[in-house]
């Protein structure tokens, strides 16, 4: 097995959002600013890696016919534990990421990778797959958030800090529609087209 490929697959060639078109709901819902996009990406990557590892470890003891309910129990238990622990011990981080954690349960990337990859592969390969897919998701949703925030709000924010504000410094009039759901579809459409074009050219 080519481990490098396992890792890099998720970044572009099998990018979950832009190529596999899964996990669109959290990407569109939370990618309204660079800051929130990055936060959701990091939280998802963490859960994805951990759930891949757990599912891969348990794959030999999981009967085929009931694997889906078992995956769902494992994933939602793990996400809830992460939610409690973060809320208790890293309150600062929880204040900005906390709203995304429950959304991760419904993020189909997690279940899709458990089913399509971790259930059939070793723990090491599953970890790499989780990292690669997570990185691809994070890059996509951060870029999506940055574009939407810049056009829709005239700002760019990162680590809960505003980097710059072109609506006050350059008198830019933000197009609010980009922060709202239609803007998410418009931007993601262009991003999918861009990635398709890039992949087709080589």
């Amino acid at each position, binding site marked *: 097995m080519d481990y490098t490929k396992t890792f890099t697959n998720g970044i572009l060639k099998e990018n979950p959002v832009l190529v596999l078109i899964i996990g669109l709901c959290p990407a569109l*819902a*939370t990618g*309204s*600013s660079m800051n*929130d996009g990055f936060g959701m990406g990091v939280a998802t990557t963490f859960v994805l890696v951990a759930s891949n590892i757990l599912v891969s470890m348990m794959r030999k003891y999981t*009967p085929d*016919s*009931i694997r889906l*309910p*078992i995956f769902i*129990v*494992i994933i939602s*238990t793990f996400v*809830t*534990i992460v939610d*409690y*622990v973060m*809320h*208790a*011990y890293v*309150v600062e981080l*929880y*204040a*900005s990421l*906390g*709203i995304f954690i429950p959304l991760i349960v419904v993020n189909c990337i997690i279940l899709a990778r458990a089913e399509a990859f971790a259930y059939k592969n070793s723990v090491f390969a599953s970890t790499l797959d989780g990292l690669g897919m997570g990185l691809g998701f994070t890059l996509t949703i951060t870029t999506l958030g940055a574009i939407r*925030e810049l056009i829709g*709000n005239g700002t760019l924010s990162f680590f809960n800090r505003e980097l710059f504000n072109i609506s006050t410094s350059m008198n830019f009039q933000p197009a*609010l529609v980009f*922060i*709202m759901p239609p803007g998410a579809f418009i931007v993601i459409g262009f991003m999918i087209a861009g990635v398709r074009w890039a992949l087709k050219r080589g």
Partner: protein
Amino acid sequence: MGFRDIIKMGLILMTVCAVSAGALSLVYSVTKVVIDENARISDAKKLREVLPSAANFVEKEIKGRPLWIGMDKDGKEAGAVIKAAPRGYGGPIKTTIGINPDKTISSIAITKLDQTETPGLGVKITMESFRGQFKGKKGEELKLKKDGGSIDAITAATISSRAVANGVKEGWEWYVGEGQNVK
């Protein structure tokens, strides 16, 4: 699938669920203590934040609604703090409201953990640029401009903005009406 298999699958599923439930309740009971303690510290911090002129607070209660009387360091009354939880777009918005002795709003506090409004839009009610508008105001001023008051709504987040404004106004009216008579 035979009868034996069905029983076997059921037992495996039950084991997985039981282990998960056990792990969850364990983590919950351990973290609950810490979370409650954090919330207590954060609540105490918010009291000082919305009424900086007070050195300590005395908790009172009128008809089940709590109220904190602020005392300055000479023991003189320095205003009061009340709470409100108006319904926003995504659930209740827990608002802490400080009221000066002259019955104007001293300041209001809403942290990110106090609300569940839309990221990027409604969540801006937690920003000082919105909350700061309430300072020094009272009565009918505590309404959105489009409702005849003096508070600027956040663009594309009118429901969240209106919820906060109406929540503050309702709390203020309660305080002026009966809250301030507490002794």
